Every structure is written in C-alpha cells, then in structure tokens.
C-alpha cells in the first residue's frame, strides 16, 4: 500500500474508533464520573439527606470528624484486617484447589462443578444461608462441633464480638475461594509443560517441584489474582450488612459510609467517608501498579 493512502486509512480508522467509543464514554461519564464528582463535592458540605440542595461548604470539617470518630477508625481497621486475612486464606485454599483441579484423575469434572456453586450463589443468599448454619441456638455448625467434642457449648458465631469477624472471614473465604482457584488454574494451564517433564525425568520430589518450579512460574498469575481480590475485599459491603448487620466489631468502610448517608442522614459525612475509601483504594491500586503487578497492555 502507498504510504499516503495508508495514513489516510489510519486517520479514518482512528476517527471511527473515537466515534465507536463515544456512546460508552458518555454513559460512563454520566453513571460514574458525574456521581463521583458530586460525592466529592458533598464531602466538603454539611448536606443532609432531606435537603440535598441546601448544603453549605464546610471545608475539611467532615474529614476531621471521621478521623476523630472511633467507629470510623474501627471500620478502617476492620476493613484492612478483613482484606488481609481473607485474601491470604483464599490464595492458599485457591492454590490447593487449583492444583487438585490441574491433576489428571477421574471425576475431576465433578470437582469443578462443585467449586462453581459457591461462586454462583448471590452474596446476600450465601450470607443468609450461613447465618442459618451459624445460628447460635439452632445452627447446624454448633451441633456438628459439639458432636465431635470440639466445643462444649454452642457459640454465638455472628453476634459475639470476638467471633463476628471470624464468621465474616469464613463466609467470604467460602464464597470467593472458587474464583481465586479458577484464576490460578488458568495460570497453571499456561505454564510450559517441559519444565515439569524435565523434573519428572530427573526424579525430583513433587513437593520440591512445587516450591522450586510451579510457585515461581505461577507468581505473575498469583499477583494478578491477589490484586483483584484485594481491591474487591477493601470495598466489602453486602456480606457484613446482612451477616452481622454491620455491628461495630465488623463494620467496614463501605458499611460505615452507607450508615452515615442513609441511617443518620448526614450526606456530608457519609460522602467524606466514601471519598476516603475511594482514595484508599486508589492508593492501593497505585501501589500495586508501582510494584509492577498489573502489567499494562502494549
């Protein structure tokens, strides 16, 4: 092709590309960009829910309120602890399930099918199902644990301050480990088979192969999966709202923000809490990007 024609073509294709993108970009600005800007504005005002237009500019007062509020500090602590523990457990269990799914044995299809079930169940419903299993008086988990002589008295899983966070982590791990396992399985299947064959020919112990070959090769896939899950875990709302009704011991930053917005009607403080969460997650994302986890597409 001649050079001139080729660049004409490039120009017209670039123009079409922008035309093609326009509807999506306009909708995204309307549903995400604009509300985000409004929330940012609200966080500097004393707007109340009953009078959305009547808010006065108050500077950074709302943010100072949050830093001094012990419940907000608790929600920050809870969210970080929850994200760290649940993502670690999900990575370990997800890796185990992925390795089992990657092994060749009869009946593997059944395992994959079963693993997809927790993933398919809506979070709200899994929270309710587990709420029933963990019920302090009639829950089946207490019955099983007493039957096995692991505990003597029934435990108040979701209500007691010490166990509430344990329950939240338990249900989240049950619900999201399958997703982790599938991501890691996809990573495992992309690994070059020659390395494993070479190791097998040399008669190296499977555990050694795992630590020395599989794990280092799988590191990029693990990093991506951990980033995705961490960003997701930091914004947790549904599970805590339903399982423990957002009690102080388990309140997350998202739950706190919604409580301020709609239960206490203070749109200013709620928006400030939401904005803060947004910045914390953006910082986390930037941190991940800096450490080279998410490689940008060429």
């Amino acid at each position, binding site marked *: 092709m001649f050079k001139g024609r080729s660049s004409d073509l490039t120009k017209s294709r670039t123009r079409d590309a922008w035309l093609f993108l326009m509807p999506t970009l306009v*909708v995204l600005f309307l*549903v995400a960009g604009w509300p985000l800007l409004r929330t940012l504005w609200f966080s500097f005002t004393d707007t109340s829910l009953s009078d959305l237009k009547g808010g006065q500019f108050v500077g950074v007062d709302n943010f100072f309120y949050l830093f001094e509020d012990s419940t907000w500090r608790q929600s920050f602590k809870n969210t970080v602890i929850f994200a760290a523990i649940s993502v670690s457990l999900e990575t370990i269990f997800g890796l185990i399930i992925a390795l089992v799914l990657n092994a060749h044995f009869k009946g593997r299809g059944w395992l994959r099918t079963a693993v997809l*079930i927790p993933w398919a169940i809506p979070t709200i419903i899994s929270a309710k199902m587990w709420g029933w299993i963990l019920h302090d008086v009639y829950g089946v988990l207490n019955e099983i644990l007493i039957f096995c002589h692991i505990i003597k008295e029934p435990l108040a899983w979701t209500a007691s301050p010490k166990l509430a966070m344990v329950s939240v982590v338990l249900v989240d791990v049950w619900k999201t480990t399958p997703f982790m396992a599938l991501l890691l399985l*996809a990573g495992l299947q992309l690994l070059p088979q020659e390395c494993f064959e070479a190791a097998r020919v040399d008669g190296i112990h499977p555990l050694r192969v795992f630590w020395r070959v599989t794990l280092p090769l799988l590191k990029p896939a693990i990093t991506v999966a951990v980033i995705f899950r961490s960003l997701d875990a930091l*914004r947790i709302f549904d599970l805590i709202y339903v399982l423990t009704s957002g009690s102080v011991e388990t309140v997350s930053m998202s739950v706190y923000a919604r409580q301020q917005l709609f239960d206490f009607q203070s749109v200013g403080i709620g928006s400030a809490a*939401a904005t803060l969460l947004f910045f914390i997650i953006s910082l986390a994302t930037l941190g991940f990007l800096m450490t080279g986890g998410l490689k940008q597409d060429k």
Partner: protein
Amino acid sequence: MRSKFYTPFLYLLSALIIIVCVFPFYWAIVSSLKTGSDLFKVEFWPAHLTFSNFIEIFKEQPFGHNILNSVFVAVGTVSISLMLAITASYALGRVRFRGRSALLLSILSISMFPQVAILSGMFELIRTLGLYNNLLGLIFSYMTFTLPFTTWILTTFMKQLPKEIEEAAIIDGASTLTICTKIFLPLLWPALVTTGLLAFIAAWNEFLYALTLTVESQSRTIPVAIALMTGASEFELPWGKIMAASVVVTLPLIVLVLIFQRRIVSGLTAGAVKG
C-alpha cells in the same frame, strides 16, 4: 511417578472440597422443606417434607413480583451494556490510536472502584431524573459496573480474532461499522454469551444500589427482598421461608452455571489473566 499414596489422597481432598462447597446449599434445601419445630431439629434429611414455605413466600409477599423485577433489571442491564460495549471494544481491541492504553486502564479502574464511592452522587442523580424507586433507575446505576466489565472482556476477545479477515475487508472497501457488525459480530457470538452471562449474574446479585434506590417492597429485586424478609416480630427471622426463597432464586442460577461452566471459566480468566 504417581505413588500409591498420591491418588487416594487426591480423592480424599476432592471429596472434602466438594462437601464444603455443596453442604451449605444442601442445608438450605433441607431447611426449606421443614416448618414449625422441625426446623429447629438437626436432621440431615427431613422426616416430614412440606412445601408450605415455598407456597407462603409467593402468597404472603410479592416474591413473584421481585423475581420479575430482577429478571427485567438484569436483562435490561445486560442488553444495553452489550450493545454499547460491542462498538467500544472494537475500537479498543482492533484500532491502534493514541491514548488507547490510558483509556483501557481507566475503564478497568472504573470497574474496580468501590460502589459506595459514588452512592450519594448517584442517589442525587436518580432523584433528579425522577427514577427513584423505579427499575429503570436500577438499570441506569448498574451500568457503572457492567459497562466497564463487558467492554474490558469483549476487548480481550476482539484482540484474539485473526487480523487477515479484517485486512481483507478493508481492502474490499468495507466501512469500519460494516467490519464491526457484519464480520466481527457473528464471530463474537460465543464471547457475547459468556460476557452477557457474567454481566447477568453481576446484575442479578447486586445489592447496594438496589437497597438504596428502591423503597417499596413491590419494586425490590430479589437480593433486597430476601435480605429484608422479616417474620412476625423483628427478632424472629422466618428461616424456613428465607431458605425457600434462597433455593428458588439460586437453583436456576446454578443450572445456568452448570450448563455454561466451560464458557464462564474462559470468560472469568480472559478478563483477569490476559489483563
């Protein structure tokens, strides 16, 4: 190499994983078939089967209505976001232009940001548009997560299509729109099914916006209806009915997932691993 010890261990581990994954759902089914004091006895198969929980959720509350609401919202959300995402993903996946990477990255970051971060702005916008307590308002707000997600996944699928077809079409003088809709779209059907299914599940399961932007029990979607189900008193939750409702809405979802499991797995991993 595969030792005698290895295979039984694998089966034992698989059995354990299957039990842990399936038991909570099994327990929900068993509990939904019991009423009265039977519900509070731990039996792994109910002695007296009854379907009264299932009948009551449809009689005593607008549960049928809630299901229709969820179907309407999820189907609407998926159709609109797929329609918008097809052309957008063609542009992002097949055309090289300045700012493409930055655009892709910002679309991905929109799908990662916390829903609550735009909640008050969204509430105000929905109020201003007069869509409060309206299913159209839910479809509108669900675009925040389904549109970036479908665009992102379809872009990875678009990139995988062979270059030769497109070059031949360009030489034949086909316009960009023709290439996108007449040549690529038919090739993308499998990808559209996968992406649509994942977006459908996301919309079907959404809770925060549905809880915030609707107020009457008539206009609630299923997750909100189940979360807010109460019994005779505030402290006595109707567990049998909650389990029945959970089974009713989860069973079709599980069947769907089982039928399409290969597609779903490929869709989930296309979005994440190749990113």
